[in-house]
């Protein structure tokens, strides 16, 4: 028997891990991960597209000038209009990825890590059978891993097939939220406090 087993310390760590403790641990580590990925990946990617944005802006400015002067002295106006149109299209495409979608993944990752921390605390407080705590704990974990986790894999790391698994995370979160709500009805009890007077 190892010293850890004889002292009972390892038991105290693993004991009740799925009663909410694992969600709090996972939540903090995952939050750190999402917090790092924001400035490390999303913001630099936005920065990389800044020169393209400046180029488009200049091209549109040229069109404005050309329109006010009736394109006087310009042999082929299409050569001015073309780059601006292509630039605008590229900008829209970039926004689609980095703006809405990229930020949404980051937001989902942050929110789901926070959700796990909160869920862990609530589960530890609930007076319900251990089996119910275990299934709720697993559902919250699955929700974060298969939803925002798979979105990170797909959008940030380019693993295309990961998107297909997001449904598992989505339904896990729906189930976990509904069932935790129900569990709170019967399992959340106010602790008796003594009146100071």
């Amino acid at each position, binding site marked *: 028997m190892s010293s850890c087993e004889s002292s009972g310390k390892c038991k105290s760590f693993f004991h009740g891990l799925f009663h909410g403790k694992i969600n709090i641990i996972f939540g903090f580590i995952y939050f750190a991960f999402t917090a790092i990925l924001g400035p490390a*990946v*999303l913001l630099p*990617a936005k920065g990389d597209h800044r020169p393209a944005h400046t180029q488009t802006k200049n091209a549109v400015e040229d069109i404005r000038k050309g329109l006010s002067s009736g394109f006087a002295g310009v042999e082929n106006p299409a050569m001015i209009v073309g780059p601006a149109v292509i630039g605008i299209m590229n900008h829209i*495409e970039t926004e*689609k*990825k*980095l703006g*809405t*979608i*990229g930020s*949404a*993944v980051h937001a989902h990752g942050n929110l789901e890590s926070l959700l796990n921390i909160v869920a862990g605390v609530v589960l530890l407080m609930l007076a319900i059978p251990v*089996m*119910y705590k*275990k*299934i709720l704990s*697993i*559902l919250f974990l699955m929700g974060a891993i298969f*939803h925002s986790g798979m*979105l990170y894999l*797909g*959008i*940030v*790391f*380019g*693993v*295309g*097939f*990961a*998107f*297909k698994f*997001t*449904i*598992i995370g*989505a*339904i*896990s979160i*729906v*189930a976990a939220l*509904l*069932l935790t709500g*129900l569990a709170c009805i019967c399992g959340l009890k106010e602790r008796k406090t003594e009146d100071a007077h």
Partner: protein
Amino acid sequence: MEAQVENKLRYVWDPLLRGLHWWIALTTFIQVGVGALFMFFEDSLSEGLEDTLIDIHGVVGYLFGAGILVRILWLFIGPPTASWRDMVPIKPPQRKVFFDTIKFYLSFLRGKAPLYKAHNTFAGPIYLAFFFVAALQITSGVMLLDSHDEGASVQLFSFAYAYEGGDGLLDENNDGGGEQDEESFFEEIFEEIFEEAHEVGFFVFIFFIFAHIFAVLVHEFAETHRIIFAMFHGKKRFTDEEWKELEK
């Protein structure tokens, strides 16, 4: 004078299992109902109504999926009466129930009905098969919903729809396109496969619903355990002798 045998209510089904049973039943009825409208009245549906029905089918589908996912997890985490071990004939007494049930059916319900506490091990594998088919229905449904380019309001969860292609932000030459032609060719083939599979699953569901309700009614009247009410309050009726035998 013959001694009267007293039946007592004994706790069998846990609250989560009962809740999930009715959750899955309700969402199944809605899904099958909406599915039937698509299947049989597709040509007479207006475009707006079709989109609304797809939205309902999608949202209820997510709720159905949530119910099935929790039930599958509960097979492994839940109490013995909700476990997969209670459903399959792996132990000698369970195998006896399995064969006794077949004999009971073949004798047109004559003789003594087989005794079991929670799940009948003849029906158990059918329930497991139902969970498997349900998981396939959810998968194929999600794939079809993603490929449906109109009425996209239920695609909130699916970023695959908004973000076409799989080029990550970490890729150097990220143009978001990829081999689109080849992808759309495979997508079309998969879409057809998923559509066919979803339709087959629809008929399997209808068969299961009728078979389940028929079997429940048969057992309700052939036995004295009150299995329908048990799915509400969790307690089945057993005599002391029966309970002793089940607790062995």
